């Protein structure tokens, strides 16, 4: 056996445990989700093949799936623009290292340290019509007849749920800030020497150079909207009616009703949507092209 073949054998051997773990915890479960999406399975008896019945039920039983896709598109748009935009803005501000920037960075991190479920409960109180700080503040500044049941009226519920995550953009901020700090100083010095203004440096140098970080931020943010669950289930539960449903709630319903086939069909759609987002954002931000 040649030396190269022996080396390759050792490499394969050392990679084997990782591949086994990856297969056990990723490939096999995903394959199970996909395959059982075509079955009727209550978790107690063996799955029974039913073809596309679960997908037909998902798409057509009522308008819940259409509402879920609508909400997902809107939340993705808000996430990709306002949420990521806010995080990027904060990153650019922190990059200038104003007075107290480390404190601001630390404080900005706090909401993301708190569990989403805890935040959902906090927001439920904050948006309460009687005792919540939001409505009392609005009534305090002169709108005495302001009464909105945020999580129980349409379209207020959609906006209330959006607010539970909209400004918590610390991950985007940190990724973008990290890339900003990695830009060589010489690039900026050269630009200033050529007479570039601060805005021109930001617009024509910094922004293009953090393109990949922003793209990553958009991917993280949009895929989080696909998987978003606690913020909805613990506040509006998808209501009023089905106004704030998303696909993860449909998946959850399948689980609690012991319709695992239906739940896995919803899960398959979530996986496919996630892959679609990844491909689209990669292309949009040209993330496979060299930055320098």
């Amino acid at each position: 056996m040649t030396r190269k073949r022996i080396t390759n054998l050792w490499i394969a051997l050392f990679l084997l445990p990782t591949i086994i773990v990856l297969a056990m915890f990723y490939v096999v479960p995903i394959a199970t989700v996909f395959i059982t999406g075509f079955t009727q399975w209550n978790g107690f008896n063996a799955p029974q093949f039913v073809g596309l019945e679960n997908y037909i039920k998902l798409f057509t039983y009522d308008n819940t799936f259409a509402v879920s896709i609508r909400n997902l598109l809107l939340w993705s748009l808000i996430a990709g623009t306002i949420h990521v935009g806010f995080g990027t803005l904060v990153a650019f501000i922190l990059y200038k290292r104003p007075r107290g920037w480390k404190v601001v960075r630390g404080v900005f991190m706090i909401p993301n340290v708190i569990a989403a479920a805890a935040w959902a409960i906090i927001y439920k109180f904050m948006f309460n019509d009687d005792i919540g700080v939001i409505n009392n503040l609005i009534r305090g500044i002169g709108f005495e007849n302001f009464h909105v049941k945020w999580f129980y009226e349409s379209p207020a519920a959609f906006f209330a749920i959006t607010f539970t995550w909209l400004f918590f953009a610390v991950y985007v901020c940190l990724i973008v800030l990290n890339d900003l700090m990695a830009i060589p100083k010489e690039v900026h010095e050269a630009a200033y020497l050529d007479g570039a203004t601060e805005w021109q440096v930001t617009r024509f140098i910094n922004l293009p150079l953090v393109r990949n970080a922003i793209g990553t931020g958009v991917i993280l943010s949009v895929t989080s909207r696909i998987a978003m669950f606690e913020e909805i289930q613990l506040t509006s539960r998808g209501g009023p009616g089905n106004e704030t449903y998303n696909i993860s709630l449909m998946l959850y319903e399948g689980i609690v009703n012991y319709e695992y086939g239906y739940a896995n069909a919803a899960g398959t759609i979530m996986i496919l949507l996630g892959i679609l987002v990844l491909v689209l954002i990669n292309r949009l931000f040209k993330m496979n092209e060299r930055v320098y």
Partner: protein
Amino acid sequence: MKKWLTVTSALAIVSSLLLTACGSGAATNPDQQAGGETAQKEVVLKIPHYKTGQNVGAKYFMGLVERFNAAYDGQYEVVVEEVPQDDYAEKIKLLYQQKKLPPIIETGDKQFLEDVVIKNGAFYDLKPWIDSKPELKSVMIEESIEHNTTEDGKIFSLPMAVIRPIGMFYNKDMFEKAGITKSIGQMSTDEFVQALDALKASGVAPLTLMTGENAWTTMLLASAFMANEPGGPEILNSTEWDYDYTSEPWVNTFAKLQTFLQQYTTNNAVGAAYADAANNFLNERTATIANGTWMISDFSDPAKSSEGFNQKVGADLYPGGVAVATTYDYLWWIPSGLPEEQTQGALAFLEFMYTPKELETYMVLEGGNAPKLQTSEEFESQLDPILAEFNEAVTNDLKVTVQSFENIWPPQIPSEFGKYLPLLADGTLTPEQFAQELTSKAAQFKK
């Protein structure tokens, strides 16, 4: 040589790491799987339950456990694991999947019980045990024995001995201030609405409604009003699931419900959970609440209501002489496949629960009546005055008993009912549209 030694060591480390990661599911002691440990003498029955802590049922249930443990000291001990009420049914399903069911279970998800437990015969047949205990069988209600008997003659769960009609509580002071003198149970529905207007005019919110969770108090009141609709009692007393809510009795009831939500309840009814609703009545923000007699203990609980509040509370039937109750329910059951000592312990617990003294204790604390039990002389004197008032109303004014919506809806629908109620309340949905939405939802679960 050195190279081989290095490689062999590396492989050994990796293999042991993998084996450790994969070997965490070691079999447990089968006694522990069944929910108990076998000490030398005492059999421990570990059961999850929600009637603990601040739950309304805790006073009776935890007292029952304490008394059983005292009576069977050294032989059996029931240990309760606290579980939130909303999670109890799911916990039981999970334990079933894990083959770790506790020795005694109170109901659970009705559809799961019928479609899985009864269908797969995963329960202990209580018939031979009941037949061997004539004094036990003598207190059981016949219709309940029939309902709990499977097609092949086995008895799945403990038949009921006590029926607990549900009515409503009212604040006597508020009623007096509003000039209402007639008993609620003797009123027609129109008279009741007039009473609501009088209460509203006197400055109080007449009804305690809620849309959160399963919209319990709202559902009870709506069930009672449907009982006053032509054809309503027949629909409500069905023994089959109902999947269609577009008929006239339903739509008329939803129309009344819309009016109640819009005009006769508190601002925070939309979105309110049971705790919020109970708080409204206990803190005298509302004049009435539809709820069962198990709530009576809250009226004298200093942690929940002001001193002397229980003196202000009266209990009555719903308008039209309606009470909400069912004998078509499952209660306690024992899973099959348990170790013999666990099964015997579970049977001892059920038998203890149905002794005349315990049944009386249950009725004193939670209300209801045991039609086949000869109560003791002290029983009546032990009754809370509010409970005694309600029992009197049941005796004198009861005209019709109906089940509540949740007894005839698929288990998923009460939650959907609560989610769609805000849209009914704010007028986004008409009663007809509301009925149609619920019917569409129910169609998904039709077998």
